[in-house]
């Protein structure tokens, strides 16, 4: 046996694996880094952060969360966010589901035009529509109203919701609907008893996606809501932004209160989200 063959050698697949791991480590640091930094700052005071922005938190100021929740109105912001997002997501699921069911199942006049009109709205950036929307909300008495914000959220997320659900509904075999018709059910009953339950993976996807997006929504909320007791969580950070002084520590604490529910949703439901998005992609 030669000396060369006895020396340890790294195989090509081992090198590829090492390169992949290195890439994953760098990418994880890149994406998780800001989150970890904010999480770290949320447990430190603004004075500690000013002294050393990147130091580890010690001691841990958990009392900042209680202070934000109780003294800085975060409990109100949180329940505003919950009520607005849940209402919007519920409406989106029902209206989007019905619309998608119709687009996928029925042939009707001007179907293409209606489809185009709904989807044409997504090509405009929100910055373009927000001024006009502001005026409309004022005219209809919906400015500074939680109901107004719910309606706006429903309208901005409806096209994508319909798009995802319609693609799924279209793949449900029409025999199922016909069997239900012969079993004696009306179109309305078929929607509730067949379409929605069968499309549960896609429904879950839209619910999770809309919840995450609307929970984090800032632009429409900041323009349409100015009263403090109607603010949502993303607007809560404004409370710590003064003209002269920024309470960076409390901003980080507020951000963590806003972010944690989204992270939890993603951690527990990401698999279902991916399933819904890719359902049917591979037979």
């Amino acid at each position: 046996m030669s000396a060369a063959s006895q020396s340890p050698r790294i195989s090509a697949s081992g090198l590829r694996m090492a390169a992949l791991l290195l890439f994953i480590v760098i990418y994880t640091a890149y994406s998780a880094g800001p989150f970890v930094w904010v999480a770290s700052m949320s447990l430190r005071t603004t004075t500690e952060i000013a002294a050393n922005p990147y130091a580890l938190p010690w001691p841990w100021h958990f009392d900042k969360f209680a202070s934000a929740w109780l003294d800085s109105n975060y409990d109100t912001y949180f329940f505003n966010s919950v009520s607005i997002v849940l209402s919007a997501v519920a409406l989106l699921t029902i209206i989007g589901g019905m619309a998608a069911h119709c687009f996928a199942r029925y042939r009707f006049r001007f179907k293409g035009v209606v489809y185009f009109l709904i989807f044409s709205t997504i090509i405009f950036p929100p910055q373009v529509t927000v001024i006009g929307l502001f005026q409309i909300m004022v005219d209809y008495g919906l400015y500074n109203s939680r109901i107004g914000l719910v309606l706006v959220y429903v309208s901005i997320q409806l096209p994508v919701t319909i798009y995802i659900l319609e693609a799924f509904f279209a793949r449900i075999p029409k025999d199922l609907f016909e069997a239900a018709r012969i079993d004696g059910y009306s179109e309305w009953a078929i929607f509730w008893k067949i379409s929605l339950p069968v499309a549960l993976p896609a429904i879950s996807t839209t619910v999770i996606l809309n919840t995450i997006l609307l929970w984090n929504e800032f632009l429409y909320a900041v323009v349409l809501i100015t009263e403090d007791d109607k603010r949502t969580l993303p607007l809560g950070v404004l409370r710590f932004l003064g003209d002269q002084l920024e309470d960076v520590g409390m901003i980080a604490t507020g951000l963590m209160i806003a972010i944690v529910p989204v992270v939890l949703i993603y951690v527990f439901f990401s698999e279902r989200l991916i399933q819904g998005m890719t359902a049917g992609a591979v037979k």
Partner: protein
Amino acid sequence: MAIVKLDKVGKSYGNGAVMAVQDVNIIIEDGEFMVLLGPSGCGKSTTLRMIAGLESITEGELSIDGERMNAVPAKNRDIAMVFQSYALYPHMTVRDNLGFGLKRRQADKALVKKRVDEVAASIGLTEYLDRKPHALSGGQRQRVALGRAIVRDPKVFLFDEPLSNLDAALRVSTRAELVRLHQELQATMIYVTHDQVEAMTMGDRVCIMSHGKVAQIGKPMDVYLNPASTFVASFLGNPPMNLMPATASETGIETGTGRIAGTGFAPGTKVTLGLRPEDLRPTDNAAEAVVSGRVVSLESLGAETLVHVEAGNDKPVILRGGRETPARLDDTIHLTCDPDMARFFDPETGLAIPTNTFTGDKK
């Protein structure tokens, strides 16, 4: 149980631009098992769907037990349908699938449960009642689809190629199961298939369709033995009836390589001669041959051998021989038959010429 009557029923698409089904006249008697048979695109499924109420009827009239059904929605026709894909509700258990239609009509949950249990027991599904369709085999799913139809005790059962997704062995056993079910329920059943074996073995009568029209209706053996047209002759039977051009002479029908002795046609009359492969037999006597030619192919199927004979026509003439056949490749072979089994068709229209037109000489 019910009588289903289709009177000049038609279906067109695009404001009459495409006629999928036209002028269909069928009366399906009470308790009859009627098979709609035909190749893909012949309109058999469309006809069934019109009976079900899943397609609108653009012409004619459909009635069930004398009541006009054209405008009656599917849910009010009191029919049950078994789909090719089974159409089981994937989010429901077998029990819920079976009871889904019944719940709509019967509010009493205890009665629904009792009926579902009865039907599940009768078709061997009791142990699968709490499973969902994805946890069942193809045959079990098929039985659930069947049970869903039975449980409602409808006036008419409709089947849209329900066996086509099953493997060959399961298809044979399910075929027998369906025949047993029909005998037990004595219900009116309409069954769509493109499989002639299913049609021949299951149907009280067969309705053969072609290009949206009814080509022939009759008992399976009647249709097989006396096809109404060259289409039916060539569609039914595997291999199908041999069709070849022939000309009448003073003494019989001349095929070019042989003749059938007899009288009936005016000399010089052109006909299409039809002979079933199993009605032909080899003979050593060239003088009595109906067809003579060279053996170009031999297909041994185990129980029988198909002998392909090149006799100067577009297609070879096929003889269905026994397991052992004396024919060898490239041999010249003479084939004869009982003149009574010969069928004649008009070469222009393809329609059958009455069998009593020709009287063959008995040998």
